[in-house]
């Protein structure tokens, strides 16, 4: 429902009805891709249905029904390259994976993989049967952009609750708070003890080390031989060994696993109603620009905010890539979204006495080098109808993060402590002094330096 309202509310300049969208399958697909991209230009194109992803709409069906000549040539070249050099068979620049085959528009196919170096397409664009980047929806694919491979070793994680899970002792201390864990635990009026972890914040910050060896003729002159033999030595027993049974092939780099860069708001997007959460009246001034978004400032998560955040992300990507081109129309950026004001339905929920604390965590940067300073912000809200008390927030920092002394700030009265942890970093602990009233909450921010 909210999706249709979004389109209706943005249709001031481009009138369109929801029935028209639902009745036209090409438009539906284009709408999904346009939503994912969150680009106003694509939205306009999709609503008009004259073009999708920069290509004529009529050509999409023909392209997906039969591979183009260029695709066949590329596939032939790829197979030739595979025969000539198997090492370069996969992931080489300019080669379309062989998984792309002919298909009709009625039966969606799997999307081809996107290689970092194969093309300069955006995140939602791929090479699909042509030499140029087209939108994912134009491929008639059933899946979104293919998930790129990521290595967990190269990320600094903060937040969440890793195994073993956090348990609360009788003396109101916590056990099982591993490095990178961030949890809040509290007590309800009925006496239940609840533990709620935050989302995991990944920060790409690989650090390189080196194992150094020095060898050479001048250094090997100190090799010492056997000085004396005290007793005659003879062979007692000779065991035959089968090399094929004892040799182990080279192993892969261990510790790799797939990680998903789940955005900060995804885990807390569903569940408790957000209509009750009131603005935070005692929030201090925003310390960094990313705290200006409404989920941090007021605790409200609306669909308009998600759209705005996507706009920020798109602008930031355009802004921070030195080689990228930015389009301006009469001095104004081409990517603009109208603010949407639509009447929202109001629902009233009767909630039982349960664990209803909402907490999430954000970071000021998603990539960092050694020496950079990263600001973390934790937002927590009591989304239940009863007060919650004795709340404690614990953040056990990663060994790559160095807490900057005196940088923490909280919007409510807390007792703060910072103690060293087992991995050479710090454990930050905030004990909230007063019970958290219903629809109330707070925010915590602190800074860390990447080691």
């Amino acid at each position, binding site marked *: 429902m909210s999706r249709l309202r979004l389109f209706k509310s943005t249709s001031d300049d481009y009138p369109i009805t929801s029935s028209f969208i639902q009745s036209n399958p090409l438009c539906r697909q284009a709408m999904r891709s346009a939503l994912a991209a969150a680009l106003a230009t694509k939205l306009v194109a999709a609503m008009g249905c004259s073009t999708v992803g920069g290509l004529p709409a009529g050509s999409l069906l023909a392209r997906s029904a039969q591979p183009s000549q260029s695709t066949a040539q590329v596939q032939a070249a790829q197979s030739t390259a595979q025969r000539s050099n198997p090492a370069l068979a996969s992931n080489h620049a300019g080669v379309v994976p062989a998984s792309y085959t002919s298909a009709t528009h009625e039966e969606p196919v799997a999307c081809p993989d996107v290689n970092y170096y194969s093309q300069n397409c955006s995140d939602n664009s791929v090479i699909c049967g042509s030499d140029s980047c087209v939108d994912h929806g134009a491929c008639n694919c059933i899946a979104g952009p293919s998930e790129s491979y990521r290595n967990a070793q190269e990320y600094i994680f903060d937040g969440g609750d*890793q*195994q073993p899970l956090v348990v609360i002792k009788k003396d109101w201390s916590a056990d099982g708070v591993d490095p990178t864990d961030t949890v809040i635990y509290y007590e309800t009026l009925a006496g239940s003890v609840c533990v709620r972890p935050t989302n995991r914040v990944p920060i790409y910050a690989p*650090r390189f080390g080196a194992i150094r060896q020095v060898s050479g003729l001048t250094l090997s002159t100190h090799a010492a031989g056997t000085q004396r033999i005290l007793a005659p030595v003879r062979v007692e027993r000779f065991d035959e060994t089968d090399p094929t049974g004892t040799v182990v092939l080279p192993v892969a780099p261990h510790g790799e696993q797939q990680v998903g860069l789940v955005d900060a708001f995804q885990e807390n997007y569903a569940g408790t109603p957000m209509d009750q959460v009131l603005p935070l009246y005692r929030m201090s001034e925003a310390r960094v620009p990313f705290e200006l978004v409404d989920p941090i400032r007021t605790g409200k998560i609306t669909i308009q905010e998600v759209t705005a955040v996507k706009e920020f992300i798109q602008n930031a990507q355009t802004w921070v890539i030195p080689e990228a081109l930015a389009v301006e129309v009469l001095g104004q950026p081409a990517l603009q979204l109208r603010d949407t004001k639509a009447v929202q339905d109001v629902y009233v929920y009767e909630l039982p006495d349960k664990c209803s604390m909402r907490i999430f965590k954000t970071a000021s940067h998603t990539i960092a080098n050694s020496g950079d300073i990263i600001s973390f912000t934790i937002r927590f809200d009591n989304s239940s109808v009863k007060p919650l008390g004795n709340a404690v927030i614990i953040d056990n920092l990663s060994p790559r993060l160095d807490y900057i002394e005196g940088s923490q700030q909280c919007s409510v009265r807390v007792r703060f402590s910072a103690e060293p942890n087992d991995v050479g970093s710090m454990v930050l602990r905030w004990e909230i002094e007063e019970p958290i009233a219903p629809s109330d909450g707070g925010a915590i921010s602190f800074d860390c330096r990447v080691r």
Partner: protein
Amino acid sequence: MENMISNEAERTFRRRFISGLRTIGLWKLCLALAVGGPPALLSGRASAQTLAPKNVHYFLDANQAPGAVAGAQVARGARGVGTYQAVSLLGPKDLKIALARDGQFLPPLSTPVTSGMLVAGVYRFKVTNIPFRPGDELYPTVEIIDRIYPPAGREHRFPIPVVLTEEDLRIALDGGLVTRVIYVEDNELADPVSVPPGEQLVHNLPASDNALQVADQLGKPVAILRIGSRIPMQADGDLTDFLYGCPPWVPLITVPDRQTLVEAGQWPDVLAAPATEKPFSETPDQDTPRIPGPD
């Protein structure tokens, strides 16, 4: 929609689990936990511990000839083989480095020299203008054996640093061989020490040990640097064999770090303001923005 499905599946699982408890009885569950519970409870920690290979005989060693490890990566079809990886060659001030193309060395460049090199390629480069030994030349090799996986569009911001120190250059000029296995640290096992920008954590290892194995246990080896005193037999002849086939590379721009950009005014200074003694204030409205203006 997917969340709804997953939530529904989770609720279904919980319902079945609870109904199963009622069916089999609580005492049977306790018995099952007593028998098989502790290993299952410890599985999270145990799985993390078993990530490190144990009792594995390493076929590969950093002391092998250049290309041996990369060849093994090609043979087993390792992920990333054949793609370009950003590599930055660093060294002392005024050091010159010349890369090779088409069997010949190109004019030297000042360090740092950043380029995209093929994974599983062996690159030999020429080091000249050594500060303490002017006129001498060295021809180290760097063997790219793996790659890293930065976010899309940020590959050039995280090159593999290949550091040539004065001490290593001096040892090589005196006839020694310095081998550096460069690895990307496992951030969960990282040393809690601060590393200034441009520097690198270095662990010295005896020549009898396997540096590749140690690097594999600390993280993921990505490159092997060998600094020796070997020179080409014919400086003006065909150097293809000396250059290990002269694999292709892509020139890249060395990206300055964030602090340099901030100081140059090319990057917004988004560092947090220091925490104040008065953490409470009124909620700003439209007339009182949170971020003060330029004045």
